[in-house]
């Protein structure tokens, strides 16, 4: 019965082959976390920008001498007359209390706390109506009115999010480059260690491609092995983060991770790592072998 042949170049017995899977595992772990950061930020920025566009929030602070219902009726009347307001919705007081409970904790809102009444106002496009103009129009007829434009600070938040997104992409690229550098270094080391074997292979008629296959196969195996290890640790970390994020109870907290396709992307990281390792090992080996006689 034919026995399975051993690898021609005994790369599996080298020191690099022992530590390389751990290096790959670390790279994949960091890359998955950084990539998750990119996906989370991307989704969050999209959500922040999409959800609050063209909506202003009008607040009426309670006044001692005036009836709240009368002031709300006047506000509705005024809003109905403003050109550019396509619709509005009075936020129920229970919703306002719920929003404050996010910060103070459930049941911790004192009953005598003066709460503002909120009205969400939809702005029709093309009228140039902004928070400042609307505030001036309303304040002329009604005291204690302010208008918030969530879009302003959400835009700033989105800009910051995009900067972080770019930073995370840069980190992923740097991790890729570090992986490439590691493979280049270990391949060169492998060629140096096994110079005698490689010279023998050349002398019996082996092409450089045959020798390079030995290195690329080893790099791919180690890349996959380390990649699987790295993604196991990364997924465990993401589940931990997801649990922590779930306890934040804030509408701005991002989802971890964002979508099914994102999980697919993260799962592809070990495979991509193995392919990068394989291609890098092959190109490095071919370049180094070309220097031999």
């Amino acid at each position, binding site marked *: 019965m034919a026995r399975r042949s051993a690898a021609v170049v005994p790369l599996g017995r080298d020191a690099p082959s022992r530590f390389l899977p751990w290096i790959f595992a670390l790279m994949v772990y960091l890359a998955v976390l950084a990539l998750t950061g990119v996906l989370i930020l991307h989704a969050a920025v999209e959500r922040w920008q999409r959800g609050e566009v063209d909506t202003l929030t009008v607040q009426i602070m309670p006044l001692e001498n005036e009836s709240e219902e009368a002031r709300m009726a006047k506000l509705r009347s005024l809003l109905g007359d403003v050109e550019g307001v396509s619709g509005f919705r009075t936020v129920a007081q229970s919703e306002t209390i719920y929003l404050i409970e996010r910060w103070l904790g459930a049941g911790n809102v004192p009953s005598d706390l003066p709460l503002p009444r909120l009205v969400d106002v939809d702005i029709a496009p093309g009228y140039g109506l902004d928070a400042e103009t609307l505030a001036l129009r309303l304040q002329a007829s009604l005291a204690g009115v302010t208008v918030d434009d969530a879009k302003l600070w959400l835009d700033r938040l989105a800009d910051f999010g995009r900067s972080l997104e770019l930073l995370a992409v840069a980190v992923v690229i740097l991790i890729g480059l570090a992986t490439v550098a590691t493979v280049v270094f270990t391949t060169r080391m492998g060629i140096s260690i096994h110079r005698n074997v490689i010279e023998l292979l050349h*002398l019996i*008629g082996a092409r450089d491609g045959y020798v390079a296959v030995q290195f690329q196969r080893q790099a791919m195996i180690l890349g996959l092995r380390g990649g699987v290890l790295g993604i196991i640790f990364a997924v465990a970390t993401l589940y931990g983060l997801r649990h922590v994020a779930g306890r934040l109870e804030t509408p701005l907290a991002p989802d971890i991770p964002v979508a099914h396709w994102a999980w697919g992307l993260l799962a592809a990281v070990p495979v991509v790592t193995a392919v990068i390792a394989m291609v890098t090992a092959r190109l490095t080996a071919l370049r180094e072998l070309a220097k031999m006689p």
Partner: protein
Amino acid sequence: MVRFENVGMRYGMGPEVLHDVTFAIEPGEFRYLVGPSGAGKTSLLRLMYLAHRPSRGLISMFGTDVMMARRHELVGLRRGIGVVFQDYRLLAHLSALDNVALPLRVAGAKEEEVQDHVSELLAWVGLADHIHALPDSLSGGQKQRVAIARAVITRPRLLLADEPTGNLDEMLGQRLLRLFEELNRIGTTVVIATHNQNLVARNPHPIMALDSGELQLGAAMEEAG
């Protein structure tokens, strides 16, 4: 088949170890390469099995100018040359079968053919019971036979052997010589580097004598004549 003209060779920036070596070997010849230790026999063989390029002169192997040949062209030339190294150069992590199979595998032979041919050849050199043995578990003579089997498995046009009887007793040395002569009879050109004078005397063939890196043509002509 092999032509050297005014060939000089040096290792790196060191002194020249071969000077103005000129000779030609025709297909089907059997030659000894003799000379004292340090005369340059191994260096000359290294040039012949294309492990090294000369620092000057012209080398033609199988009609191809080695100096002008591109690196990938050397592969085809090397596949026509079988080499028995002085130190065998067996791969310690591979079995006798896998060591002998290497030249076939690097040439892309089918695995069934590899298994059949290698097993047959190992049986022919008396190692049928050691097919799966690792080199470290073999004796010096057995290693040498594995090295010889590896050198001839592809039926090379040129067989080069560097001190092939160095670790063998007289009887085994003679047996090995008969094996080389047998290969020579079926068309393989053979060059054996040796300082075993008894071997040369008992199995006469033309001689190329090297001394201090220079080929002594007089000796070669005398023995050949």
